């Protein structure tokens, strides 16, 4: 709080000019005020992340702006700013508590890969009937390869032995089957 007190005279002079409509003085006032507020918020709420601190700093600046007519030029400015700052910190704490009441804290997020796309929670092919229909419409060779490898989960060797085709041909059939399914399902 000692630093903030040394800024009193300068800040008060700028605020008086700002109330009179001096935009340059107002910009200087806010730019001078922001680090002072940031420092105070940090020292009062050490556990906050820098994003949360910045949110409060912005809140304080906006609040100072909206009630700037309540500053009486004949009175000290710092107690005026501190009262607004404390009020906004309490409001932010209230918001924080409200928000965390609706959040569930988890230690590990159910994420399999770092890539966002690999963690799509919703099923893109939402309609199982459409999938069944699309599988029925595949050429016989592709359908058999898909059923053995993807539905019954046989190994390539087992599937090749069961169907009497080569491993390479099975791979190609499955690849084509999946491409065909993707095309027919996304088309719909």
């Amino acid at each position, binding site marked *: 709080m000692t630093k903030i007190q040394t800024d009193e005279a300068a800040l008060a002079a700028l605020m008086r000019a700002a109330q009179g409509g001096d*935009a340059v003085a*107002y910009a200087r006032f806010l730019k001078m005020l922001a680090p002072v507020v940031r420092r105070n918020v940090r020292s009062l709420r050490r556990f906050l992340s820098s994003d949360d601190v910045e949110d409060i700093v912005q809140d304080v600046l906006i609040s100072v702006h909206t009630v700037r007519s309540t500053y*009486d030029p004949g009175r000290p400015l710092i107690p*005026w700013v501190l009262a607004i700052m404390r009020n906004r910190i309490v409001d932010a704490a209230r918001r924080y508590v409200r928000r965390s009441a609706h959040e569930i804290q988890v230690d590990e997020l159910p994420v399999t890969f770092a890539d966002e796309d690999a963690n799509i929670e919703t099923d893109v092919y939402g309609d199982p009937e459409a999938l069944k229909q699309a599988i029925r419409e595949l050429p016989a060779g592709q359908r058999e390869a898909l059923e053995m490898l993807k539905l019954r989960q046989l190994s390539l060797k087992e599937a090749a032995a069961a169907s009497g085709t080569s491993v390479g041909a099975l791979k190609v059939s499955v690849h084509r089957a999946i491409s065909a399914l993707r095309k027919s399902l996304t088309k719909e």
Partner: protein
Amino acid sequence: METDRVIDQLVGAASPVRPLRTPLARTLIWLLIVAPFVAMIVLVMSPRADLIEKMADPKFVIELLAALVTGVAAAVAAFATTIPGRDRRIALLPLLPLGVWLGSLGYGCLQTWVQYGAGGLRLQPDWVCFPAIALAGAGPAIAMAVMLRRGAPLAPRLSTLLGGLAAAGLGSFGLRLFHVQDASLMVLVWQVGSVFALAALAGFAGRRLLQWRRPFAHA
């Protein structure tokens, strides 16, 4: 949104502002605005026939003035609570005239009891008080709400509670001029009770009435 961008937007949105007057000066302005309203209500409801006579009764005058001063002190306190950095203890200011008001009514009850015994302290329903005070206090309440919204909503419930007390105090002052009801216990329960109830209602509405404004959409 970056803080520097917020500052740029605030500077862009800044227009010259006239500093608010002191709470006392704002109270005088409020009184000037609302006095004609209360006077009009008293005239419409027609002043009590014995008003001139009652003005010579010190007990009546003390009660009347105590209600008025309670309202005025509550208004000063209400305006002061919307100024950042003001001592919050100013909220206790109306307690003094309120104490005089309650004290004089309590003394009246005591006098009746000494004179007529417990039978003199009969409490009958008087359903006029609440709506009449609400009616006479409506204008002061609206003006108070508009004026309080120009301040900072630092303690919204306290500010509107005091604002409600100010408006209801003035309403009660008006009521005494047209409603013939002088039994201390009746005044204490129905009139002062209505004033408290209205102030409490105003207090409950505080967070809705007084909120921090947003000069622009804030991400």
